[in-house]
């Protein structure tokens, strides 16, 4: 059935193409939405509108599954086979820009004025990518849980401190009502670990890499602050507060909704599902302040133009078209993420004033800190992820962090400092 609809669609598209003005330059585009119908449909709609609204450019999109998207791009870059418009994950963009996969995006400053800072990808002083949304993370819980455990409800201005958070975990565990007190999401291996957990590290005053020079991780990832973070992180698992690395992915998806976990550290993309699951006192709490301020991650998927594209102006035109508020709102409604402008937020279901997800907008505004903006992030993220997993499994904290630092430093050195 899918084949006939595709064929029919192709016929319609080709006839409409024929009937249009002759000089439409084709721009190829890759997107990471294969297998995700909602995103694909919205994007296809944007592309159709763009192609119909002007006669200079015609965009065709190729869909990829998110899991292997980055690998696909790298393999294609090796062959010199990149499309014109590329989808790129925020923290990965510096690596692709440095590797000369991407060229600066010639988009006007007006078009991106008023957009959330984290949605603009900059490297070497130039704009390389722009995103239609941002993602944020919060502590999911129920008001009834807080009441039952006798805990204060933290606010943006007064989040929980380290002691309060530990006390909350202990109370949840002692109550015996939950399988685990806290679900950080260890089942989601991959970029989730650095995205979700490096803010904790940063809140302890550590970091993945020293951002003043980006030449080393020594002191940032294995300094005293990082050691304190490591000990606390290991404590989550040795004290039985959180399920470890062998957490069932199904539990990650449904555990909080089913009541297995008191608190769940999750992104706003899961907010929709949680709201629709029938929990009527769902709360999104801000991250605890472990000493250096509350922090959450930022920057999600963004559009950019590849270096082999001969029409960066066309790519910029498409991105500008896609940045219209109505599309930002559509994406937000579809996948639950934060639209990058306040106007679009007001138009969306979740983020309009009084909307159920509105709190994420403020969270993102006030607490978001992008991951380290360096081409070395790709390797550093993998090393950090492994270090977190090892510490969670009981490895010695100091040695593990030292090893991580050594690996990141060696990698930076082997790459000549990554162009900083």
């Amino acid at each position: 059935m899918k084949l006939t609809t595709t064929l029919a669609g192709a016929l319609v598209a080709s006839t409409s193409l024929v009937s249009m003005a002759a000089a439409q330059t084709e721009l190829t585009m890759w997107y990471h939405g294969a297998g995700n119908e909602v995103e694909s449909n919205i994007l296809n709609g944007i592309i159709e509108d763009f192609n119909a609204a002007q006669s200079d450019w015609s965009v065709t999109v190729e869909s990829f599954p998110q899991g292997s998207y980055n690998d696909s791009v790298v393999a294609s870059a090796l062959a010199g086979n990149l499309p014109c418009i590329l989808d790129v994950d925020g923290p990965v963009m510096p690596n692709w820009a440095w590797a000369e996969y991407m060229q600066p995006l010639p988009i006007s400053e007006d078009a991106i004025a008023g957009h959330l800072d984290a949605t603009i990808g900059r490297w070497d002083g130039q704009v390389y990518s722009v995103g239609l949304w941002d993602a944020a993370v919060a502590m999911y819980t129920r008001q009834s849980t807080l009441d039952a455990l006798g805990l204060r409800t933290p606010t943006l201005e007064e989040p929980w401190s380290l002691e309060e958070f530990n006390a909350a975990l202990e109370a949840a565990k002692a109550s015996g009502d939950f399988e685990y007190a806290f679900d950080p999401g260890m089942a989601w291996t991959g970029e989730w670990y650095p995205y979700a957990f490096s803010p904790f590290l940063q809140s302890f005053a550590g970091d993945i890499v020293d951002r003043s020079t980006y030449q080393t991780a020594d002191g940032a990832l294995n300094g005293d602050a990082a050691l304190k973070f490591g000990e606390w992180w290991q404590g989550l698992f040795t004290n039985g507060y959180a399920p470890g690395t062998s957490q069932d992915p199904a539990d990650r998806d449904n555990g909080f909704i089913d009541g297995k976990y008191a608190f769940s550290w999750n992104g706003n993309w899961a907010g929709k599902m949680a709201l629709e699951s029938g929990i009527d006192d769902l709360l999104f709490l801000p991250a605890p302040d472990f000493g250096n301020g509350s922090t959450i991650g930022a920057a999600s998927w963004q559009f950019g133009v590849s270096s082999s594209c001969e029409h960066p102006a066309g790519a910029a035109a498409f991105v500008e078209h896609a940045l219209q508020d109505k599309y930002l709102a559509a994406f937000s409604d579809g996948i639950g993420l934060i639209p990058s402008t306040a106007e679009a937020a007001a138009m969306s279901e979740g983020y309009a004033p009084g909307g159920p997800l509105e709190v994420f907008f403020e969270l993102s505004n006030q607490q978001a800190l992008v991951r380290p903006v360096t081409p070395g992030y790709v390797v550093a993220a993998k090393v950090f992820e492994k270090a977190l997993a090892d510490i969670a499994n009981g490895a010695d904290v100091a040695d593990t962090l030292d090893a991580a630092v050594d690996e990141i430093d060696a990698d930076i050195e082997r790459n000549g400092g990554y162009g900083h």
Partner: protein
Amino acid sequence: MASKLTTSNRAGWAFALPGFGLLAMFIVVPFFFAFFLSLTNQRLISPNPTEFVGLENYRNLLSIGVLTVEPERDNAGEIVRDADGNPEYPRVRTFTRNNPDYPQFDRMREWFRWHSGDNAKVVLAKDVVFWKSLRNTLMFVLVVAPVQAALALGLALLINQRLRGINIYRAVYFMPVVVSIVVVSLLWRFLYAEEGLLNSILQTLSFGAFEGRDWLGDENTALGAIKAMSIWQAVGFHMVIWLSGLQTISPTLYEASSIEGASKLQTFRYVTWPGLRNTAVLILIVITMQCFALFAQIDVMTNGGPLDSTTTVVFQAVERGYGKQDISGGSTISVILFLIVLTISFIQRYLTREK
């Protein structure tokens, strides 16, 4: 038997060249390419030009050293002991980081240690994860090869009886071989889960005495779990090969031994086993090759964890070359793997040569 009828350079080369050419292009050339890459600092993505670095990759990968660590002593010169009465030792990182006295151990990590007297002898390595992957791979081969071969032989003996419908059983035992290892790994992930089927079955069989374990999440059991699954998937294949070997043994030999009143065990030892020698050699070699290539199961089920207990050499090669974009590092591991496999196959050929 060279004669004018069979000697034909032109035809010989003409027939062999297409096949050999393809093989050379797609296996031999990349292989030498890998050798070459291991001597450079080639990255997967980089605007920097590639440089020749000689054996530095090998040094980074293989450097190990042994450090003797004396226990801590208090002011009176007495050994400081902890609550269990064991001597306390200074942390290894004080020797390996920013310590000008031990430059050769700079940035190394502890792999394992043993005690001689009161001192601890610590084996340090620059790349502990690689050595662990090597150890895991060798452990895998040493356990799986004989166990799988033996189980396959047992199944072959079982199948080699004249019962009605024995072919159905033979077909069923072979079925897992047909299924992709990726599919098998996904299914077994469910079975090994803490609330999964394996634990339920074991609990029922032991009447509740057995406590469910997290097979893949425990560093002590993860590799064993993968071994069991790999054996399950591949044993049918080797069963069939044993079967064919069994069936070449002349039935007259069996008749003779039963006339002489030999027991089952004696029959096996003196009639069956000698006839299976060739088969045994083939099976052992094939299983060993397959074991060294262990990758897909790890990638799907454990990603090398927990705590590097399931990482293998091939997994490390792919992760470094592709995941961490360090092609030269990945190639270095590949070359080392090849040398190991080469050595082992030479040893195997030597041990099993016709005497």
